[in-house]
């Protein structure tokens, strides 16, 4: 498998953020995940976690296939981020707002991926936000702003197809905006 040569979108984020869920919501075929019993209950209390990676795909009518990868959530697999992210059309970072580490996770993942490939479309989805706050996304925006980083940050529930679709549509819009010249025909 030539991971850098294929059309792909990568979902990343810490354990339990919703990567498997997002790929399940959008993939044509049920994702191939390598779920195992979670023996790191300390990091996140859930029954199973993804080792290696999640893999789904979108098979388009003209035969083109867009692959969807989810990076493993456990920190000890962080070496795979760069391999998976390389050549991807975009990286979608998912963060669980309820996690006590949410802001640090956001900063860590964003700076790592921006460091690997600064021009790559990068979109953040924040799940499980409490809407009662006046501007619930403000702390997330501000944390990245202190590093001079402005990226799309959306409140999402990736269990919903439309929300995951929005994240992918944003990756496409960013790529389109960077294309120097219009091709023949129009949208």
């Amino acid at each position: 498998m030539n991971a850098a040569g294929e059309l792909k979108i990568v979902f990343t984020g810490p354990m339990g953020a919703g990567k498997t869920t997002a790929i399940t919501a959008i993939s044509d075929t049920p994702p191939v995940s390598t779920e195992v019993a979670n023996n790191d209950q300390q990091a996140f209390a859930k029954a199973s976690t993804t080792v290696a990676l999640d893999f789904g795909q979108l098979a388009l009518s003209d035969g083109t296939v867009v692959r969807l990868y989810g990076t493993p959530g456990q920190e000890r697999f962080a070496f795979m981020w760069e391999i998976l992210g390389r050549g991807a059309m975009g990286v979608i970072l998912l963060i669980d707002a309820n996690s006590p580490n949410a802001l640090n996770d956001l900063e860590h993942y964003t700076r790592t991926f921006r460091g690997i490939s600064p021009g790559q479309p990068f979109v953040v989805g924040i799940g499980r936000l409490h809407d009662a706050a006046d501007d619930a996304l403000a702390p997330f925006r501000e944390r990245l702003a202190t590093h001079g980083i402005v990226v799309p940050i959306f409140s999402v529930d990736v269990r919903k197809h439309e929300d995951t679709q929005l994240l992918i549509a944003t990756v496409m819009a960013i790529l389109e905006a960077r294309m120097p010249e219009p091709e023949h025909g129009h949208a």
Partner: protein
Amino acid sequence: MTAPAASQARTSRNIALLKPARDNEDLVEHALQLFDSMLWVFRGTTRSDWTLSPPADADVVVVHQAEASDRVNALRSQGKLIVVLSTQRAAQAADEHTLVYPFPATQVMSLLEQLDEHLDGVRVEKAPTASPAAIATNQNTWSFVDAVRTVRAARNPGIWLSVEDSHGPVLWVRGDGARYQCSAATQAALRLGQLSGSPLVMERIATPRAGLLNGPGDELLWHCAYHASNSYAPWLNESTTYRLRYWPDLGQLRIGDDLTTTSQLRVIAALDALPSSPRMLLKRARVAREHAIRTLNALSACGFIEVVEAAAPTAQRTQFQAAKPQSGFRQLFRNLRRHLQRRSGR
């Protein structure tokens, strides 16, 4: 028992808005309205109470810069303080009593406090005139948006305002504009730009009704501004360069219609890639003119974009290597959008 506090008796100031004798451009009307709604929203937050009055009874008279100078001089000679509204975009404020449209609410508030202090020196006791109970906010399509913007600038979370149409209250805005409340039906109308055909009036109230949806203020302002007009908001300039400060939360603001969302995403992404004037953006964003204008209106109303003061910005595109689809990215994206839409209809 303590003695009645003298500070509880608030001073009342009279202020007049002088319409130009000759009927000028819409912008003059709009500037006066904006000042009017700001006055109203500031009630209770300024040191003194400011009440609209005829020029003859006023401590302060607000005039347009085109006002005849003999009329202005006559008012000055009667001891009235003059505030000048300028609608020339390039105009420099001639002095601290000149407001260049679109003047920010904070500037008006500090000007009022300054005038107030000045009047303390020259004050003659006057009977307070009846204050207007409410402001009608739909004299033009932007006045409701302006009213909400003013509420946000006033930052008064201790009060609530009700917004009424001819049938009664339809929604409630907190005095800092950061929250609003309404029924599910009103929210649906708001998102589709069908809030009300009849005049909307804002009025100060104690608390909203119970059992309403509670949403963030950005949502109210975004949808109102998006639907206000298919031409530019009065404060936007076609040839001024704007940059994206941050992305709006489309997870919350999108209305679930793919065409609208795609257009909004393209406009925002185009601005994010490169600061642009609206005129340039219309060429770059590859969306229908109306969609681009509406999205810019909403972005600017909510403060997501700002004017770039410096000279022409340089391209900020950073290259990265993505695998290239055989038929090109645009074709790929057309297919991918169609694919996802079909599947969302399942």
